[in-house]
């Protein structure tokens, strides 16, 4: 688990889940990218956004990169606000979001 200023990353390697908490922005980018980079490409990784309070375009870039060049990503537990951010940028066509 990596603790930053306002964000946290927790990797559940067995279940292939990455839990994110706090603000996912430029500051969190590298930590999130490192967490996602730790998985092989043999299956999808679930990113649990249950604890995320904020995400900006830099944060979205990390998710998109993982989704299209990495193992494939499913987003789950995103708050309505964050789902709306993803929809507003048309990224719901790129990212798989579980209800």
């Amino acid at each position, binding site marked *: 688990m990596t603790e930053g200023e306002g964000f946290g990353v927790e990797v559940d390697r067995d279940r292939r889940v990455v839990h994110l908490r706090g603000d996912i922005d*430029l500051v969190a980018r590298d930590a999130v990218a490192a967490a996602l980079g730790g998985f092989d490409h043999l299956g999808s990784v679930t990113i649990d956004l249950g604890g995320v309070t904020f995400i900006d375009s*830099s944060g979205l870039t990390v998710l998109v*990169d993982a989704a*299209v060049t990495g193992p494939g990503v499913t987003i789950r537990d995103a708050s*309505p606000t964050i789902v*709306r951010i993803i929809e507003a*940028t048309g*990224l719901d066509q790129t990212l798989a979001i579980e209800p």
Partner: protein
Amino acid sequence: MVRLRPVRGGHEWTRPSKATLIVLVVGVCTTAVVVLAASRAHDQNEERLLNQRTREALAVLEATVPSVVGPLATSAAVVDTASEADPEVLRRILELHVGPEARYVSASVWPVDGTAPTIVVGQPLELSRWPTSETRAFFERAMESDRLVVLDLLDADPPRLGYAFTDPGRQATRLVYAEQTLVRDGTSLARPDTAFTDLDYAIYLGPESAGRVLAANSAVIPLEGRRASAEIDLGDAQLQLVTSPRGELGGLLLARLPWLTLTAGLVTTAAAAVFTEQTQRRRLTAEALARENAGLYDEQRRGSRALQHSLLPRSLPDVPGLVLAVRYTAGVAGTDVGGDWYDVTVVDGGLTVVVGDVSGRGLVAAGVMASVRYTMRTLAAQELLPGDILTTTNRVVDDGGPIRFFATAICGRIHLDEQTVAFADAGHPPPLLITADGASWVDVPLGPPLGVRYEGPYQERTIHVPTGATLVMVTDGLYERRGEPVDTGLERLRSAAAECRGDLDTMVDSLMADLNPEAATDDTAILAVRWRG
């Protein structure tokens, strides 16, 4: 254009800080008070001890008085009672008290008229050198006194004291006179005694002010420094004893206490001052560095803003029937260049307008922005329609590598004659149409941002724009607030735009002022087009 000012070095003298001066003043004052108190205590103690020692010394002196007076009194009584006695008897009595081991160096019996001694024992008398008249005057004084009469012979070599005594209460015809040689250290008066240890003293015949020194153990007369004084009677004369301590009567520790206190106080004060000064300087240095960093930060930000502006169109085309207005501000929080842009290209029968936003910040974002902007501009100049411009640009900018950035863009093709606009949208906030009826979002089919490996085409939607209406395209920096739902920000923008009156410049200025306060962190671009009425 980076200027580094040197931080103040340690070798340069800088004025100590106010806090340090306060510490110094308080420390020195406290030390002074404590030292004064210690010094006063020491003084009082020394004074008390000196007075005590002086009283003891005086007691020793007083004890010697009977040994001076006694023999003479005895002799005088014998002389008087045995006025017709055998001179040899008298001589033997006197001899008892004369000699190197005895009290007197010489003793004598005189007739009261002072002419010449009838008996002299021991060394020649100083008194014998005196004229008879003076001797007689002295004897008359002695006859009138009922006590031992002391004669000052201190100027003789060696100095002497003369003592004359008559048996009181009788009409004597003769008197006994003796002389005593004085040893300067006073041993002729009193044996060295512990009472005088550690003391400088001077014994005066008469008051000290007369300066007739009987004995002293100090080369410096009168005694200096701390002194005590006491008097005793010797016959009709008075002796004054003046003492001064040679060292510290109360011991060295008490004597050094003020100095120890002073040293400890000053060392403590100095240490406190140094500590305070160091703390202050560290703070000042930190503040100076912070100011310097803020300055550098500011400079960097100004540089970034200059770069950003250089990537944006320098001027807007003059199009009949349309009014154009653009605004761009760099976010204040970051120093990095933002990726927002706007563009206007003159095309056949109208304009192609673009507002876009590259994710992230920094020079790379600015570079991506420049490549996306010029790609779209090139395609627009080739008369491509918005959907094709976005679809083609998406293929061009996506190199298949890791995704570090993406760009959102709204692209519109304005047909002046038809008064229509065809829009296509790659992940960007929709355009806002402001008419006399109010402000509403243009419903443009939304595709993903450019550069996220999207394979499909971008769809278009064409709208009709009534005369006098205004289209506003913005980047999210204008309305987005951290932690707030996107739609709340969008609605704030829409309702603010609906309230706007006046010309187009006034409108975009008020939108900037109302929605993008000074503290906005993101950069912001606005492009507004109004169809002249």
